[in-house]
């Protein structure tokens, strides 16, 4: 029988790694505690990878379900956070790719509906500046691997060493991915700035 955590010990006192070990043995309450600890972080990453709240919840759910299914492969002698972030980053890369394929086939009517839903999203509305909106759009246009790398590095403030663990790539590869992503974003902001300048010029004339 799998060991059951002593009832006198509150689950909130157990370290992540211990909880993951019990959860792998089928203790759902231990997984629930991990879910409580990580849900905001995972949701935030998914929100920035998906670009909208509608998909973010589905994606976060998928991340947790995958983590649960893969728990038997987790080595509890290693820290839990990098392992979970690796599951999350792989899941997000896959979901971005799947959505891209699906969008290519999406009917126009459905697309309108998705846009209308995005208009309901208070977070999207609350975005501060036009420049930030453009930056977000540029991030959304990055290839999946670069996008996830930037979200983890910038939003989650991971060091490059942590990022390389989360992505499952060597340190220099993680750094290169982020450098290329930043360069692309910078480039598309320059383009957008030029376009905005030109269109303003036309209006003035």
């Amino acid at each position, binding site marked *: *029988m799998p060991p059951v955590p002593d009832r006198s010990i509150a689950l909130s006192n157990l370290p992540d790694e211990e909880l993951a070990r019990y959860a792998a043995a089928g203790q759902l309450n231990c997984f629930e505690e991990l*879910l409580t600890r990580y849900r905001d972080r995972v949701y935030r990453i998914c929100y920035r990878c998906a670009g909208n709240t509608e998909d973010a919840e589905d994606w976060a759910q998928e991340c947790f379900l995958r983590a649960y299914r893969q728990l038997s492969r987790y080595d509890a002698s290693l820290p839990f956070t990098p392992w979970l972030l690796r599951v999350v980053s792989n899941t997000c890369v896959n979901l971005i790719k799947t959505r891209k394929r699906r969008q290519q086939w999406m009917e126009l009517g459905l697309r309108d509906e998705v846009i209308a*839903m995005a208009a309901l999203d208070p977070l999207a509305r609350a975005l501060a500046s036009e420049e930030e909106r453009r*930056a*977000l759009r540029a991030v959304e246009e990055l290839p999946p691997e670069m996008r996830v790398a930037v979200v983890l590095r910038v939003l989650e403030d991971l060091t490059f060493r942590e990022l390389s663990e989360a992505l499952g790539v060597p340190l220099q590869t993680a750094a290169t991915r982020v*450098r290329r992503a930043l360069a692309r974003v910078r480039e598309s902001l320059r383009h957008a700035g030029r376009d905005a300048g030109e269109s303003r010029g036309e209006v003035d004339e």
Partner: protein
Amino acid sequence: MRCARVQERLPLYAAREMAPAEAAAISSHLLTCARCAALAEDLAAADELIADALRTAVEAPPTLAIRVMESLRQLAPVRRPWRALIPPSAMRRRLALGALAISLLVSGYFAGQWHAGRIKPAGYVATREDRITLSLALLGKDHLEYLANPQPAQIPGPDAREVALGLTPLLKFPVAVVNLQSEGARLLGGRKCQVHGVPIAFLLYDWEGERVSLYQMDERKITLPPMREVTFRGRRFLTGRMDGLTYVAWQSGGMHFMMVSGAKLEQLIRLACSASGMSHPA
């Protein structure tokens, strides 16, 4: 140090994640090479801008944990990861003990089932675990079947109060009066129907040519499936779209309300918002 190498290492340099000797070499290169210095500045500016744009105080919606745990409870019985916990050397010794424990568990489970079935008190209230989860597909089928083959309403409209008072004794729960006249939706009538064997109140509206069904059910008997949460005009709704039908649900006074229609979500949610403001029983 060559420019290509410096540029490759810039992110790690900026993050101070390199040996001091290499960092010093890059520092001195940046002092003399305008191109690399400009690139470093560019990357730092992009980093800062993205950080400002991406940073968000967004929190996971409360439905996330519920959805995950509900999915896992359905998954859980098929998992057999005991092996992961037992070191291989102890495997054989424990196998016999394990078999005994499992047989005890299985017989305990069946005994428990029998026991629970026998001693349910008369006023038994379903707990969260034995509530039935509503199937949207089934509700959608009921909505479409009724449209294809409309029988005369058990309690005809358009007086919402009359329909609610007429349905209440049939359903054994207080049915809410939902008069959507102000939204241009005319109440055609109401009837009692059953989904998963649970009695449900059903009101049918004509909304400018679009048929809208409003189902009401006791939340102690039935629970809603995982749906997307949307806040509209300060109210919380669960929404879904499947096979050309839109579903909008809300909770009020111990009841689940579910609106079903072929209308688009952004239209139906407006009607649901008005309805949720008046979903109190007759």
